[in-house]
């Protein structure tokens, strides 16, 4: 019940570590995992409006996707933050090639991406992970937990693999011919 209440009240995904901190020495990591697992099962079995999902390095209580159109209709004057095509391109280059410098992003896109990078930094979807060794000591960019949350990913391993994405080999073949 406590885990359920925390998941309901929390704004950000709740991690195993946060739950362990909450209970102090009283419970083990395994007990926390079991509690989450049985809570997940309980919600799946009930098949109600809410579900438990693993997202952004933690767990969250959300509405089920099929109810989204109704909630969107309720919030007629609001919309969620959807990234522009340029922002999606930049954030995907950072996600797949991190740590990456701004000049590497510019090279791939063929256009100046500094403004888009600034916007993504402001949104907290990417962050500076360090500096590249060598002349200029360029900033190295990587994604954040907020990025995982925004795209509903449990970890970076859950990113769609490039080889799963359509048409790349077709383009490659066309250019080879």
């Amino acid at each position, binding site marked *: 019940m406590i885990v359920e209440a925390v998941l309901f009240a929390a704004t950000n995904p709740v991690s195993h570590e946060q739950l362990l901190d909450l209970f102090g020495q009283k419970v083990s990591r395994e007990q926390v995992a079991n509690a989450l697992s049985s809570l997940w099962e309980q919600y799946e079995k009930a098949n109600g409006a809410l579900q438990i999902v693993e997202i952004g390095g933690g767990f969250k209580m959300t509405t089920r996707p099929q109810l989204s159109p109704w909630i969107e209709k309720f919030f007629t004057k609001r919309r*969620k933050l959807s990234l522009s095509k340029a922002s999606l391109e930049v954030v995907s280059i950072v996600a797949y090639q991190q740590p990456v410098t701004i000049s590497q992003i510019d090279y791939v896109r063929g256009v100046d991406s500094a*403004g888009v990078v600034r916007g993504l930094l402001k949104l907290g979807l990417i962050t500076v992970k360090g500096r590249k060794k060598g002349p200029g000591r360029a900033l190295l960019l990587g994604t954040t937990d907020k990025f995982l949350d925004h795209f509903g990913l449990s970890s970076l391993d859950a990113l769609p693999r490039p080889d799963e994405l359509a048409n790349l080999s077709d383009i490659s073949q066309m250019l080879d011919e």
Partner: protein
Amino acid sequence: MVAGLSAPEGSEFRVQVQDYAGPLDLFVYLVKQEELDVLTVSVLQIVKSLAKFLVDRSPGLDSAGEAILLTADLVYLKSRLLLPGTPPEEAEDDLPDPSSVLVQRILQYEEARAMAQGLAEQQERRQAMWFSGDSTKYTETEENDIVGAGVVDLAISFMGMLTRDEARQVQYISRERYPIAETVVKMVKILNGKPSVSMREVFSHARDLEEKLVFFLALLELVKFSLVSAFQRRNSFNIRLRLVADADVERLRLKLGVSGESGLRERAPV
């Protein structure tokens, strides 16, 4: 033909050449797929139109940047086809081949675009899940934020849903297997009672490639008879479909020969 709401004029660079009129990205796509012969197209004419479009319409930075990049891509594709290939023995061993560097860059960019598309879909799935604290992420909808999706948008979106093998396959549609009238009814039932459904979700009900194609034809019929409107948010790849409340159901029924009990209701619920 434009489905549902219509896109405001001037927001997108459109190409008009001998065999083609439409958005630039579809044009470049067709050239890459060798559906259009770039050698017969005047790239100079397209570049001049682009310059005029940028001056006259002052599009947003994203649209302008994308149009310039795609035009550059087109110029590169044509130049590559026009220039004779360098014989291997004349190539310098110790210097990288400039054309292979360019090809590599185009491949990298295409990969980035495909990854961005993958993330856009991921974003849509995530946004279908709501929770109370999420409200901080919302921004007010601008009045012109939602734009109608035209036939070309529907076609691009449909092509994006096909797997690589499916896109290559030549498919014959048999009248008996998936009659369009029945598919129209099936599609209406999917949309019925919901405010809107993503195009991808609607097409996920198709069992195979043939049914996917019939779904697309059925969607065009529904859009043509204003029974379904297709729309998308500006800067979004994702098209959503919804039943139109005051749709001309009777006309479509007569055309398709569908009876009143088949699922095409007098008034589609909102």
